[in-house]
């Protein structure tokens, strides 16, 4: 068991650096996915001429596997668009695209789930459509979709392991580098797997607490 100390504990700074890069990539992807998903959703619902394009994008981002999207963004986009110009950017952009497709659907379901009667109650006291959307519909959408959004973050974290393939120096990359240096995969890879599992578990648990609290207070929530 001295191996654990030598290979994992002594390398903890390297692993921590990798973990911070993972967090960085995931945070950027998460923020971009929420904005992108919201934009796609609202365009689909309110900008009629762009609806087919938005729908196509949503379906494409959802159906294409994340690894394929990652390769595509990393190798094809720079030739097509001249961007992204770094592996790091390609990494979080691909992750964001995939999740924005899912979140666009989530937001759409959330908006449609707000009972019509509540909009009418707003109209009956003289609220205009913008006020109804801002004060009645969107706050409820935020609350009802919060658990799904947290879940999407766990998806991003799990998918982020693939950015190591395009040489982004995340936790996966650093642990594989250590394995290549030391030729001893057991402790390093097991520890890395444990870190990812623990982190995703923790985020999931928070998501569940959030979902329970929302249901207790507001009586709304998925399922």
């Amino acid at each position, binding site marked *: 068991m001295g191996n654990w100390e030598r290979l994992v504990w002594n390398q903890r700074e390297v692993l921590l650096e990798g973990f911070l890069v993972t967090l960085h990539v995931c945070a950027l992807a998460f923020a971009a996915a929420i904005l992108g998903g919201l934009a796609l959703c609202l365009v689909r619902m309110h900008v009629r001429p762009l609806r087919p394009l938005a729908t196509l994008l949503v379906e494409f981002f959802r159906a294409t596997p994340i690894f394929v999207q990652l390769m595509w963004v990393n190798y094809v986009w720079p030739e097509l668009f001249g961007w992204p110009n770094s592996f790091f950017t390609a990494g979080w952009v691909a992750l964001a695209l995939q999740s924005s497709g899912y979140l666009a659907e989530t937001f759409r379901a959330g908006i449609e789930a707000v009972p019509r009667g509540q909009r009418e109650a707003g109209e009956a006291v003289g609220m205009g459509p913008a006020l109804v959307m801002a004060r009645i519909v969107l706050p409820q959408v935020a609350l009802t979709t919060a658990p799904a959004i947290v879940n999407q973050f766990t998806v991003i974290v799990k998918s982020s392991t693939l950015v190591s393939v395009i040489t982004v120096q995340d936790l996966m990359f650093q642990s594989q580098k250590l394995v290549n240096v030391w030729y001893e995969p057991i402790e390093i890879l097991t520890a890395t*797997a444990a870190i990812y599992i623990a982190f995703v578990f923790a985020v999931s648990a928070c998501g569940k607490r959030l979902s329970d609290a929302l249901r207790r207070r507001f009586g709304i929530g998925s399922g």
Partner: protein
Amino acid sequence: MFSEALRESVDLSLFWDYREVMLSGLAFNFHVFAASATAAIALGLGAALLRVAQALPFRVLGTLHVETFRNAPDYIMLVWVHFVLPLLLGAALGMRIEFHPFASAVIALGLVYSGYYAETFRAGIQSIPRGHLEAGRACGMSERQILWRIVMPQVVRRMLPEGLNQLVSLFKATTIVSLITVPDLMYRVSMVTATEMKPLPLYTGAALLYFAVVFAAASLVRLASERWRRRILA
């Protein structure tokens, strides 16, 4: 430069030239999918039954299984099963063991997705109204009969849409097996790119092919779910 690159990526003739290679790669995706789906469903059902068991040790075991594999990234599991598990088994059995990449892929994806399936099955089992079980007991049915004749048929029907969605996700997950040298479509694309030096049509072609397959499957699942929802919802 943009239009030239656009034309090059849209000109899929290179991808078409290699279509046999590409399609046989896609076939590997399907093979891995079929095998790991079977494993995932079987293991997932087992874990779900453990989690709803009466005895605490079973419940703990089931929960451990589910939480370990449900929260694990596919890629790290893949690498761990392929590089670490053979060493552990080898040490235990006193021999040198190596896993065939295909086997590692099936085991890894099977384990991860068994975690998801376990949750799906458990939710299905626990959604069966208690009254159904009590009616079975009142007729004198044994617990096993109740499980297989009353509970499972309903669980399958209720959880079919979610279960099918997870199959689609599993298929998408098979695209990473190229990373441990299973010769699937992505593997072929990277090999051909290495010789032809033209990533645009190849990666675009692969993306479109995967999109077509997954979109078709997901749409079928969606349509079927919509039709079932009206019939099942009780």
